[in-house]
């Protein structure tokens, strides 16, 4: 299973965290190099498009399935998008390859075990993120990296 990217949106539709994983070059794997290959910040546009998509789909699903329905994932011929929304309207989105199993539980774990523990409980972390000031927390980033890595290798 491959994870392509991961996004967190707060309740004001602001992208507060984004990360993209590129697959490591097939032939070259230096022992000292980062296991998942280099990471790269994407442009702002991708995050906005992803937010627009999940926002529209969520509203569509709620209209058809009722207020308590929630969309879980969608698949195209190229990738699969997983979605999890907390009761406080923080949205977790992950893009993986199409063969991956449901990541709903994984996203929930990221929220409970990583986001709440390292970001929410951090007294220095801002509650709101105006103006694109995202989650800037080493502990969170490191453990997220580790979490995804164990998922990828599993």
């Amino acid at each position, binding site marked *: 299973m491959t994870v392509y990217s991961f996004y967190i949106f707060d309740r004001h539709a602001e992208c507060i965290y984004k990360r993209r994983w590129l697959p490591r*070059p097939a032939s070259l794997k230096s022992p000292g190099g980062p296991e998942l290959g280099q990471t790269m910040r994407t442009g702002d546009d991708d995050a906005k498009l992803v937010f627009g998509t999940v926002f529209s789909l969520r509203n569509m*699903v709620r209209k058809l399935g009722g207020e308590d329905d929630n969309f879980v994932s969608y698949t*195209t011929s190229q990738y699969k998008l997983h979605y999890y929304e907390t009761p406080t309207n923080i949205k977790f989105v992950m893009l993986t390859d199409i063969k991956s199993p449901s990541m709903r539980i994984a996203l929930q774990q990221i929220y409970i075990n990583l986001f709440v523990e390292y970001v929410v409980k951090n007294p220095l972390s801002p509650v709101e993120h105006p103006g694109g000031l995202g989650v800037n927390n080493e502990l969170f980033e490191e453990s997220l990296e580790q979490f995804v890595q164990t998922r990828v290798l599993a």
Partner: protein
Amino acid sequence: MLHPDWLLDPRLDSPRDELASCFPVAFQLARTVFSLIIINKAGGLIYQREFQAGLRKLSTNDYLVLAGTFHGVHAITRSITPKLPLASNTSPAVSSPGANTPTTGYSYPNPGTPASGLESLETEKFRLTCFQTLTGTKFLLFTDPTSGTVDTVMNKVYELYADYVMKNPFYQLEMPVRCEAFDRHLGAWLRGRT
């Protein structure tokens, strides 16, 4: 003369159950379809029909909005397909931040297939399968999330559309579908009765 016991045979109490036992797979698939929506290539709603209760009913206006929204979202889902830079064997694994210059080439995760928009959407209460024809018409099938693949149903719907809508000389392209024969055959096939 029929023996009275035969008439009381529970296996024969309705022709519908008899049918179901003959074609269990097709019947099971057909049983779970909530509704069908057809969207033309411009994003307009041209057909909407409910087969089984399960989803909330919307007003005609809401269905039009839904069709238009889906049309747009479908296009966006195709454009956010992850692009993987072509792995060049010469690039170092440990890169400096400056090495993030845009690479010239990229490939999609499944290079064999062209990038498509949303094909299947899962929620807690239903599954939406979208099939886009080569001409851009989209068929949206809402089914039970527990049911398996709906390819059979989708193919049959497309076949019926081709037979009774496209071959109807009075049907105007891109306009709402008002073909009685299409309605009839669709209903007959999806409900398993005539």
